[in-house]
């Protein structure tokens, strides 16, 4: 395990997690200890069911921490109130495998939602910022398209734009390149990497995509709910 720095945005200690109750209760994570450094691209790898996504969602305030400790941006997640979790989530960016775009909102409106969470501001400013990031991701011509009119790759790029438009301190990404072609996938990961260098944005990414590994600052391999290697 790597040494922790005082400013590490994610510090995990003795984390265990279970699914189900009673006789069907199954442990999915075992005694995880982990420090993730600021501005780095960390990749979580491992076979299906190894606990990658569970660990990602626990670190990203999407699931309750039952035992052990997860310190996120200086806040203890175990026992944290809903209000604390809600405020913390605004400092994060999520890219989901299934992109989870809102079907009734256009690409531009979906991205705007990543800004509106920070409060009401000038609407045209939000629109400009959303259009800018979509253009950067090659969707300048698709701003007013509903998700059902976009391809899988385009939807994923909208989801990336939505996660990044609010300048998050940490980006959690679950298979962000799964629906993208090689070029778009690499472009997305390079964008995340650049954000780390320029703004100190930390990225934690679950992926099976070997192409990305060479761009990662750190690779953690999980098997059966345990970290088996840390490179």
């Amino acid at each position, binding site marked *: 395990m790597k040494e922790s720095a005082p400013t590490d945005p994610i510090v995990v200690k003795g984390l265990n997690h279970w699914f189900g109750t009673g006789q069907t209760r199954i442990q999915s994570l075992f005694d995880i200890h982990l420090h993730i450094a600021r501005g780095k691209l960390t990749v979580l790898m491992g076979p299906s069911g190894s606990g990658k996504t569970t660990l990602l969602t626990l670190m990203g305030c999407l699931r309750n921490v039952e035992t052990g400790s997860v310190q996120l941006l200086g806040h203890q997640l175990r026992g944290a109130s809903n209000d604390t979790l809600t405020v913390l989530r605004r400092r994060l960016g999520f890219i989901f495998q299934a992109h989870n775009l*809102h079907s009734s909102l256009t690409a531009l409106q979906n991205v705007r939602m990543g800004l509106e969470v920070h409060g009401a501001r000038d609407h045209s400013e939000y629109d400009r910022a959303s259009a800018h990031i979509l253009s950067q991701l090659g969707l300048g011509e698709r701003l007013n398209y509903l998700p059902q009119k976009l391809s899988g790759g385009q939807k994923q790029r909208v989801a990336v734009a939505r996660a990044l438009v609010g300048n998050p301190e940490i980006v959690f990404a679950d298979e962000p390149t799964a629906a993208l072609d090689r070029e778009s996938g690499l472009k997305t990961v390079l964008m995340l990497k650049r954000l780390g260098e320029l703004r100190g944005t930390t990225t934690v990414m679950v992926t099976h995509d070997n192409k990305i590994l060479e761009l990662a600052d750190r690779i953690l391999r999980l098997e059966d709910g345990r970290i088996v290697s840390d490179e």
Partner: protein
Amino acid sequence: MTRLLMRLLGRMPIGWLQLVSNKLRFASAVAGVSFACILVFVQLGMMGAFSEATRVSYSALNADIMISSSDANSLTEGSHVARRRMYQALAVAGVVEAQPLFIGRVTWLQEDGSKIEFTTIGIDPSRPSFIGPAIGDINSLKLANNVLLDSRARGMKPDMLSEATREHPLWIEAHGQQIAIVGTVSLGGGFSGDGYMVVSDQTFMRLFPSRFSGAPNHILLKVAPGENPRLVAERIRKELSTTSLKVRSFSDAIEEDIKYQTTRRPTGLIFGFGVAIGTIVGFVIVYQILSTDVADHLREYATFKAMGYSQRFFQSIVMEQAVILAVTGFIPALVFALGIYQVMAKATSLPIEMSPGRAILVLVGTIGSCALSGIFAMRKLATADPADLF
């Protein structure tokens, strides 16, 4: 519309965008809410007609206090009151004038065989101060067998009474008597009769030979200027010292009658249940619509929750939808209800009218029940972790 809502809400009108994204479902939702609103409007219209028809019957009279038998729940029901009670009441401080009131029912068999039932009010025409604003001049009733007939009575042919005047009365036969219609009143039908007939107390005795002038249905009293009718009624109660009589201010008697008609008579109760059922139907319809919409968008809401949107934000989306559904459902319902009211009023001669208060009540009730059903529909989202909803 989207821009307008964006300005009003200060955020993306997600509720509106969700609703209009499935136009067929939105249209059926609006139709469902409209249906429930119409149901409530019709029931409230009938309930209101009960109240209004009762109030109208009292508008023929003008008094400060009314003495009735203890079993008289309304103007037309109950035992008779001994006239000597009137003289006892006149002796009470503050009472300045008294008048017996006779109520009966006259059936007029028309030439075509149809019947009209008139609630007949018998009153002394030499004391016009007891005549309400709805009656007007009653001097013509001083002659025996002269009557004023309700031109808005249910079953009355249009313009039939238009030429009936004191100089050229219209003669008809009713209750075995030839009576002369010398004028009209405009009160309309009620639930206890098709319309009203106003006669002198003397003519009343001719029409109802079995009635006795010493036993009117009610006694009407006037109090001295500046006297509080309720306080004077209290004094009379003490003076009469009997449980067989009700001594109430005239306004209290009207309110008690309305309460009796709407909450204790079977027909009033039925319409009351109708309002409740309409509300429940509306609630269930909107709950179904909103809970289905929430379920359809749960994954998307979970994503917003993961992004840091609070429970209040989701509640505001459902509230937005509830208000949109309520308003868009209410407007066509109001238009339909106005049409239905007209048809019902024409068919029944009942005073069924849309008051601004009723329209606002139904709108607020619709928004309230829509909002409540929306809050119920959001319960699952409030308790679940975002990761469990993806």
